């Protein structure tokens, strides 16, 4: 017994504890990796630190137009009360910061990292109550009713974004962007905040489950193959009509010329 006991190293117990902790850590990382963005923010310090970092980023990148206190300027709206969802939508799609003063902010390569966007959103969200970035549970479309989402889409969205989500022209150079690459989070935030000319669809009138249904319907349109043949951008009769007038009629004219031509 004594010899056996003597063989066990003095550091065996602490090592075992360390090993167990490491194992738990690895398992936690594996399980929690789905929510890295939010976890990363928490790792970077508390909400206070995040807001402070966001304030610094805002002063550097946004304040020249929106003002140091986000109160707005001659060419830029106030951001007090727009909420973190608006910041997340505008910056994570590359619409903000604006490259030039245009009729509408186009989608561009994103300027900020996910962490910086979260910090900016936290700062602007802290100025006044406003729409918040949707939680992962809000974006879960597992149980959403896709057919009802289609009804809602045709009533509320198709006027500007086209019946197939292809987008379309508005007035004075503005346009309804196409939704083919829009992520569920972007769609949700756009409905909630009403960017630019888009009206706001509040959670009271288009509820969270309605929004999930709309997102599910849009996702289905994004992945649906065009069973009917070449979709020509899914703009409906405009491109299809132009194609028929030019190519199909051209082919018929060529065939008529061939039939009528004399043979030598």
């Amino acid at each position, binding site marked *: 017994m004594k010899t056996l006991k003597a063989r066990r190293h003095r550091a065996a117990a602490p090592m075992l504890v360390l090993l167990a902790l490491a194992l738990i850590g690895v398992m936690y990382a594996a399980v929690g990796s789905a929510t890295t963005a939010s976890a990363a923010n928490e790792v970077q310090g508390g909400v206070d630190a995040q807001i402070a970092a966001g304030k610094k980023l805002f002063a550097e990148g946004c304040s020249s137009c929106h003002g140091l206190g986000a109160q707005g300027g001659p060419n830029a709206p106030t951001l007090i009360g727009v909420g973190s969802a608006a910041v997340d939508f505008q910056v994570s799609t590359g619409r903000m910061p604006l490259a030039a003063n245009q009729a509408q902010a186009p989608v561009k390569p994103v300027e900020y990292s996910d962490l910086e966007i979260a910090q900016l959103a936290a700062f602007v969200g802290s100025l006044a109550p406003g729409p918040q970035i949707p939680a992962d549970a809000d974006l879960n479309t597992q149980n959403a009713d896709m057919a009802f989402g289609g009804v809602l889409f045709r009533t509320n969205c198709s*006027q500007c974004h086209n019946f197939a989500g292809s987008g379309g022209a508005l007035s004075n150079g503005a346009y309804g962007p196409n939704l083919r690459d829009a992520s569920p989070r972007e769609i949700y935030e756009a409905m909630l905040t009403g960017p630019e000319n888009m009206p706001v669809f509040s959670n009271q009138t288009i509820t969270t489950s309605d929004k999930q249904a709309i997102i599910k319907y849009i996702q289905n349109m994004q992945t649906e193959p065009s069973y009917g043949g070449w979709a020509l951008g899914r703009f409906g009769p405009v491109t299809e009509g132009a194609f028929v007038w030019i190519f199909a009629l051209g082919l018929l004219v060529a065939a008529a010329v061939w039939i009528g031509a004399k*043979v030598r």
Partner: protein
Amino acid sequence: MSHNTDNGVVEAVEGEQSDAARLAHDESQLPAHRPRRTDYDPRAAKRAERQVAIMFGLSAVFTILFVVAFVQVGTEEVLRIPFFGTFGRSNLYLGLTFGLATLLIGTGAIHWAKKLMNDHEVVAERHPLRSPDESREEAVAAFEAGAEDSGFASRPIIRRSLLGAMALFPIPLVMVLRDLGPLPGKVLEETAWKPGMRIVGADSGIAIKPSDIPVGGIVQAIPADLPEIQEIEGNLNSRAKDVVLLVRMNPADIVSQQGGTAEEPWDFNGIMCFSRICTHVGCPIALYEQRSHHLLCPCHQSTFDLADSANVVFGPAARELPQLPIMLDAEGYFVARDGFNQPVGPSYWERS
């Protein structure tokens, strides 16, 4: 009268011209017939024959491929072609094979006719439309004999009863016109909106509070009774007329409204309600730009400024979108303060 006698076929005939002579005369004005290569070169003819047979043979192959594609390719299968996008495999194959099978029969037949069938020009004579005098006299004689035989003139009772029957005969034809009615009456002037009628969401059917609509927000809405009205009327006419749009803007942005007094405003703190039916040809409108407060009709680009009495600022619409006066009921939900004060939708004959 000059005659072309170059090829020696035409004989100048004095007086009456025979058909044969006219034919020869017309033919002489055609360009000279030139034989095709397949007419004098047997190898070219053989080649054309082969080409036609290949087209017909390929058509048969594509027909068989159509059957194979129909049986083998599932309707859910997907094919990705760069630049063109993603296709349903089944539709693509069925369309291509059937289209080519049909096309190749057509091109084969035309190629056959053009290269191998006789291509000599033929002149067909057109004869006068008037019948010969003998036939005309014969027809008149037959009619008169029939009239004489019927005794139409000598049997007045038959004549009069027939005239009476013929006079009354159109009455049923006129009677059924009544089924085109009844006249529309006030249907075009009135909507289901009445004072105190709840305004509810178009698809959700839930009542709406002022706090549900943020500035810049819109809600597509219907009268609360719409489902029952549809049930009673058995059609969707009410839905087509009664749909409205609730829109909220900063009260300072509102330039004018179509009515209302300080005590009884038509809006509620910047929330206004408008008919969604375009006054041009009646398309339902909901393309709203929240920054400019413009509402655009997708059909003909009529544009209404909701901040300024929904007046037309662009496009073919002739008058503003009717505004529905709104207020809150005892429970704090939106109701109509009154019905529309003008007909909604496009112009019609009796509209003042």
